[in-house]
């Protein structure tokens, strides 16, 4: 479960002064649900997800992730999430197995249990290149290893920040299938995207974020009724313009 309460993040810069990257965002994402944060580039999606993953400290507000407060118990939050974004790259000089095992160890796993867990994840993701260095892998292979890294500790909450950004069609489809699988397994899934079709296909609840503020949220059907529009793209434009 993810419960964000009035989350805000302000950045101070010498040239632009105070920038409100995220401004009073509140939402709730239940287990077995996919919540899609939809917004243009610079809308505040990544900052929101980074705050939930405890990479950034909120300026005001807070959130509970898997029952842990992101301000007070950041380590427990990170133990219970799998965070994947375009900015979470792999260690090129490690093999796929070393990479996954490293994160397993950081999550407290070890010994034969860790090896078994990595074997299971590799089997599930069809990774048969475990002994190859990550720098020598194709983009699709790298994405599979990244997913293995997020799954190695079997977290109840998955956070994806534009996970299909820059990927080819086949790899993007595999990611979408993986997100659906997470939902089937009862995980809480929060993901951000600016690809309308992806959000339409995947999300149980959609939150439209613009200039740091959550303008609208709800199931796609409810948004269609509210904005009197059929397609998500039109709904998004109506929400932003209103």
């Amino acid at each position, binding site marked *: 479960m993810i419960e964000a309460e009035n989350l805000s993040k302000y950045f101070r810069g010498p040239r632009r002064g105070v920038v409100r990257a995220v401004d009073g965002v509140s939402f709730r994402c239940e287990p077995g649900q996919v919540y899609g944060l939809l917004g243009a580039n610079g809308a505040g999606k990544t900052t929101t997800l*980074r705050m939930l*993953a*405890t*990479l*950034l*400290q909120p300026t005001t507000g807070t959130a509970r992730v898997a029952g842990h407060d992101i301000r007070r118990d950041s*380590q*427990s939050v*990170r*133990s219970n*999430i799998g*965070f994947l*974004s*375009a*900015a*979470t*790259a*792999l*260690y*090129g*000089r*490690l093999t796929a197995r*070393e990479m996954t095992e*490293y*994160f397993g*160890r*950081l*999550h*407290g796993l070890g010994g034969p249990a860790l090896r078994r867990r990595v074997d299971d994840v590799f089997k599930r993701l069809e990774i048969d290149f475990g002994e190859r260095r990550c720098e020598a892998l194709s983009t699709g292979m790298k994405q599979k290893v990244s997913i293995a*890294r997020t799954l190695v500790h079997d977290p109840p909450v998955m956070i994806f920040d534009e996970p299909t950004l820059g990927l080819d069609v086949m790899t993007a489809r595999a990611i979408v299938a993986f997100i659906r699988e997470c939902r089937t397994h009862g995980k809480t899934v929060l993901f951000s995207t600016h690809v309308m079709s992806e959000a339409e296909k995947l999300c149980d609840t959609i939150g439209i974020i613009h200039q740091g503020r959550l303008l609208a949220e709800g199931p796609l059907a409810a948004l269609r009724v509210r904005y009197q529009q059929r397609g998500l793209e039109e709904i998004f434009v109506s929400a932003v313009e209103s």
Partner: protein
Amino acid sequence: MSLRNIGVVYRKELIDSLRDRRTVVSMIAVPILLMPLLTVGLGVLSVVLWGRAMQEIPEVMVLGGQDSPRVVAALQALGEIRVVPAQPDYAAQISDKQIRAAVEIPRDFDAALERGEIPTVRIYMYAGELRSGFGAGRLQTFFRGFRERTVRERLAARQLPQSLLEPFRVEEQNVAPPEKVSGTVLGGLIPYFVIVLCLTGAMYPAIDLTAGEKERGTMETILCSPVSRVHLVLGKFLMVLTASLFSAALSMISMGMTFQAGQGLLQTIEPFGGAAFPLQISVRAMAAVFLMVVPLAVLFSAALLAIALFAKSYKEAQSYLSPLTITIVLPAIVSVLPGVELNAVLSLIPVLNTSLVSKEIVAGTYHWDYIVLIFASSCAYASAALAVAIWLFQREEVLFRA
């Protein structure tokens, strides 16, 4: 404090770094090869160049002397120089290295000597030029001998004893132990190289583990793991420290082996000439210098890590660390300068203090009060630098600097 987590991060960083060619070169190859190249390599080169210059028979012009056949004949009979015909542009020829030196015999030189006058012979040479120096040196030796011979002839003519020329002798004898002699000549150089290698060995891993991670996008990956940032920075710091100490240890081992292997060879090189000169550093001194370098390695590792973390990319980190390298190398150079001696004030200046005390240790002198003071102050600086590195790792504006 979870030692397990620090250990997990350290182990991964070690494996990762040992697969990085730049780190391996700076941490292993440079410390091993630098000393042999600088001592044996430069030594051999010096011997060859010096030998060639010594073997050359310098061409020398004799200016004047037509009315003094005795001295000119003696000069021409000298096998160590080759007399070439006098020309008015002798100065230009010396400057252009066409001839090595020239000697001007004053008018009526032989007769002036007979009369007991004091004529002046002038030697023209190219100051600072090795081969010209050798040419002028041979002329000096010749005229010194010629003067002595003249005096002896005068004494004999007056039936006076030869002892008038040399009423007493002066002998110089070294009483300092061999390691002190070695320490005085090399004492400043050994810690200088160890300190520099201690720094360069840590530099690439420090950049790779911080700015390198930011550039490659792995910083965010590791930050979303449950390991605390303190454990993370300590794991990384231990890796950088390992590289620094490993470089220092390798450089010292390489130095010891090079001194052993190259001893005979280097004894032939000026100013190390003389069979009694022991070109070595004792195992005890090596261990003591290494111990003094440990807090300095901690200081370097933490400082490099903190500065490199601030950078967004590998290149930016390099541009930040280059001036730092000069700042660190400068005190190490000052310690090599003659006359800079250890005192209470200098004991508090980082790098310079370790460099100076190591110089004393290599020479076999252990000032325990200074050693304690330097070790304690270096530990304090190192702790402060590590605290800054840990603090910076908690700052999101540093970690996510856009």
